[in-house]
């Protein structure tokens, strides 16, 4: 689909805004839960691929139709790889570190299903960033 003008682009972006507000603040009109997993070289070297596959398996096993796993780049927390960000509509997105394959089930079960935190893996987001959602 070719975008021919700035206004077309802005229209398209507006239709996609839920994606970002969910990840930034939890605000969304959708009810899809997103799990972002860091899949850059450092993440993969720490086992992110295995975690990714395991997350998908667990989600399928539990038949969680509103949970999407999305591979993203590196957040910079290399010492805590693999890192996972859980974005639940209406809640501040939370970041977890060292979510290896064997932690995947626990993450889904506790965070998504039971809605409690995995306190040992909780990672403090330590940065602010140049805005994207403001115009």
């Amino acid at each position, binding site marked *: *689909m*070719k*975008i*021919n*003008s*700035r206004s077309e*682009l*802005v229209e*398209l*972006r507006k239709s*996609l*805004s839920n*994606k*970002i507000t969910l*990840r*930034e603040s*939890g605000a969304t009109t959708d009810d899809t839960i997103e799990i*972002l997993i*860091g899949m*850059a*070289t*450092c993440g*993969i070297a720490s086992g992110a691929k295995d975690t990714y596959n395991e997350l998908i398996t667990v989600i399928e096993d539990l038949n969680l139709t509103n949970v999407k796993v*999305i*591979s*993203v*780049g*590196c*957040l*910079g*927390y*290399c*010492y*805590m790889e693999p*890192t996972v*960000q859980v974005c639940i509509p*209406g*809640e*501040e*997105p*939370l*970041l977890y570190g060292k979510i290896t394959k064997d932690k995947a089930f626990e993450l889904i079960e506790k965070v998504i299903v039971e809605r409690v*935190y995995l*306190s040992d893996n*909780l990672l*403090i*987001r*330590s*940065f*602010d*960033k*140049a*805005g*994207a*959602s403001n*115009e």
Partner: protein
Amino acid sequence: MNSKYTLLVCDGASCKTTHKANLAAGFKKVIAEKKLGEFVSVVKTGCFGICGQGPIVKVLPDDLLYVSVKQTDIEEIVEEHIKNGNVVKRLLYTDPFTQEPVEKQKGKKIYQKQFRIALRNCGLINPEDITEYIAVRGYEALASVLADKTPIEVVELMKKSKLRGRGGGGFPTGLKWEFTAKQPGNEKYVICNADEGDPGAFMDRSVLEGDPHSVLEAMAIAGYAIGASQGYIYVRAEYPLAIHRLNIAMEQAREYGFLGKNIFSSGFDFDIDIRLGAGAFVCGEETALIHSMEGQRGEPTKKPPFPSVSGFRKKPTSVNNVETFANIPAIVLNGADWFASIGTENSKGTKVFALAGKINNIGLVEVPMGTTLREIIYDIGGGMVNNKEFKAVQSGGPSGGVIPKEHLDTPIDYESLKQIGSMMGSGGLIVLDEDDDIVQLAKFYLDFTQDESCGKCTPCRIGTKRMYEILDRLTKLEGSPDDLDILEDLAVNIKNSALCGLGQSAPNPVLSTMEYFKDEYEAYAYRKVKHTYSIITDKCIGCTKCARVCPVECISGSVKVPHVIDESLCIACGACYTACPVNAIEKP
């Protein structure tokens, strides 16, 4: 009362367990009682990271923090702030530096030392899905320059932002574009230098893997500004994932018409191709990079002529690195003034650093220029592993130098780092602790440099080899005090007379370590370095652990009796040092 508030109530693990507070429920209850439900919503959030002051409540859109909030404070917050619009000053977060209560969170250094521009999308969007990039205003910067600005205006914007090259030298990007734009001729090129060869640096890789579209978009903007319709990304072959994602991104960008002919119906054509590196550090130097792209040995040529005059295929070429490009869409969208408001006087914006070495939080950080090393290492980096003593931080890779303790509070920018004998380089920061041998480290770097020297010019080809040999002699205790003079002379000469920037900076690891750790060099030169381990009798508890791990069985002693190392047999492997539970072993 016409705005809708959101209360973000800390529900982090720490707050939950230490205070056993159920603040969120409390707020909901009070709000319901006061019938304010339609004006305010309560959202439980994760930890804000200042757990010592928890529980915390963040009020949006006022964007201010109340700390140490107790059940008994709920009533007051709702009544005063929500209903009457007055800030509850006694609960406000206090800035630890100024001791002032902070009313606004954003833009102030509260706990977030990092500010991400180049990495703004890394880890937040799916790099293989262009719609996610579009959702964060992707390609709007390109759309806006094509719609509203002439190429000259884009160059002016870049000049005004004062963005400087993030690859090493720190040359102003706007000026580089201006030189290239002013050259006659229609055939010009934009090159993205993604040959991140500095060992210990991986920020460019992260950007390419996490946010490839921002680079593509910026290259198109550069193409428009300088009058080029073709760009190339010169990327290390050692980065297969980055190459894979770039290829996907380029394909999607073409599909959406962000690359190719007549972009945004503006008549501007621009496309990008990938050229692979093949393992040569020197190809980070722009003339060497261009030769490599032309299928030649990656040997630098003298400048001038600069690539902006005669570059790829002898045509005017602008070479910028990945991180530089990654900043550009944000600059276009937020304005040059916004960017120029961040950082120090001569170094604007932020810089990404790759933190590694003996530090707890190894990873990538992006901080405003002017942040001190102490903040990076202790506040962001989480301090030293095992609480060892900080010795120095090596910055700028093989072209940079070490920065010792006394300069930890230097605000980092291009000039200040140069002044203390290091350089920004690509932004690798390797943290060293008391166990690290500085002369060995210098030797490591010289080994790297002489191995990676292209071999073209005399000072680099032979000079770095001789420097390495001297360091090797010294560390084997075969050197002499004269060697120190020869080493320094060589270093100065190479710096003065090598052909390319890499050669000229190759001696930096030695020059800076000699400046700050002269005594360690002298210890080797005068052969005062003790190269065996020994046991501090007073501290030894006779646990026998050291004797058991010693590979040459040179430790003797019986249980509960202080042990002794036979120094004539010790091979200084350090096994005993690691094994000792009571720090009774002294290092050489």
